């Protein structure tokens, strides 16, 4: 499916390009030992600058989702699933993504998911697919 691609910056490139090594990278604060997202040069919890991208398991669960049934542009193929995923590493560590590789009607809140990547040019977009129960 066509996708608008993000501009890469020194702060965001690790997230969008981690897929080149097959890992999801999320910013982590060494000051308060917490992950945060989206990435920034400072920790929003403790304001430490001692932050850097760190590989995570890529496992999580669906917090909420929607099956989009509107073809907003000619390039879009509906239905597709937009979801907010909470990563296994930390409560409320969330990101928005698509759930792919399964029937949209099979997606449910709390469904376990794991990351997969879809490469477009120099961007590896983290997507999620249904995972076995952990």
């Amino acid at each position: 499916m066509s996708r608008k691609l993000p501009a890469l910056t020194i702060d965001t490139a690790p997230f969008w390009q981690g897929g080149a090594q097959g890992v999801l990278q999320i910013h982590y604060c060494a000051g308060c030992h917490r992950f945060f997202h989206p990435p920034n040069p400072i920790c929003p919890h403790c304001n430490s600058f001692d932050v850097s991208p760190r590989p995570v398991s890529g496992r999580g669960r669906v917090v909420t989702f929607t099956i989009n049934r509107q073809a907003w542009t000619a390039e879009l193929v509906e239905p597709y699933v937009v979801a907010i995923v909470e990563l296994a590493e930390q409560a409320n560590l969330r990101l928005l993504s698509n759930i792919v590789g399964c029937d949209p009607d099979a997606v449910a809140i709390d469904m376990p998911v794991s990351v997969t990547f879809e490469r477009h040019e120099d961007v590896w977009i983290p997507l999620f697919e249904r995972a076995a129960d952990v």
Partner: protein
Amino acid sequence: MFDRLFEKDVAITGVGQSEVGRPSSKSATRLTLDAALEAIADAGLSREDIDGVACWPGDNNNGNSFSPVGPNALLSALGLNVNWYGAGYEGPGPLAGVINGAMAIAAGLCRHVLVFRTITEASGRAHDKAGSALTAKTVGRDTSYFWQWYTPYNVISAVSFMAMYAQRHFHEYGTRPEQLAQIALTCRRNAALNPKAVFRAPMSLDDYFASKMISTPLRMFDCDVHCDASTAIVLSRTDAACDCRQTPIRIEAIGAALHQPWSWDQISLTENAAFDVGRMMWARTDLKPKDVGSAQLYDGFSILTMFWLEGLGLCPRGESGRFVENGSRIARNGSLPLNTNGGQLSGGRTHGLGYVHEACMQLWGRAGERQIAPHKIAVAAAGGGPLGGSLLLARE
């Protein structure tokens, strides 16, 4: 918590609104002038009295139908001499213009501020259906601080977020589609009594369920309807309001808080900004939710009205579904008449100031056929996701 309550120095003294077209044959500037001049005359003022102009979100400098006219254009077209003017997207939602204008008055910059909101999305979408899409906010790669996290996932419309909020609300609180439907059905019943409303034909629950699923669980009738319109409000310093024609409507309290990230996915998925805003507003007044006689609550998407009902304490947290069930409490003759002009779902997406306009018309007893029982206190709130602001209004 708050030891200065600036809004107590400010009152609404006049309101105006252009025709609500789908589309309108008038230019965006003409619609704006119609609304502005009506509001100034409604206050019993002349243009020489207006010394401030405020707007949300203001001119995007690209003629975009979301906001084609800002303060620069209006004050020039109207020949105003202002001591202060301002606009901008970043702020506590569609009521930010009112909040900023009130601050300018309380700070001593102005005496009478014209606040307006012009939107021409009905015309805009006739030319470019994707013109207001999130993906259209940047050219080429997404350079936006926030949208870049969403557009790669084909989040094209804000409905993606609203649908996910609704899904989570359904999951946590057992809210049901037929309960959510009551927002759309109530608005449509009220729109039938509003000659300006875009959609006035009766809507049944079956009609609601038959409307196209846009993004589960939200249907087309959960989404507001584009229009071309401008709405204007005159704010006056309370000691200058006595010069005016109307009984002033005091701004009793403002809510504008955001105690969470400005984000559509990191924010509370079942609160958005509404609870932060509600806590702030009620901390600035001795009035209580039970004092509210009418509620004009943002319905850009139906689920947001539910969040406002809860966030402003008009019903308990998580219980908006039960509160609106069968529509009796929120009906025109119910305990909390809601969106009495048809809201944005059926009245038209005037985007924010339409709620303030309607709240004032009801408080003044000028709402014509759709007038509800006389009352002195109304609440207006607008926004969704991280955007949120509210006004508690009190007729003298």
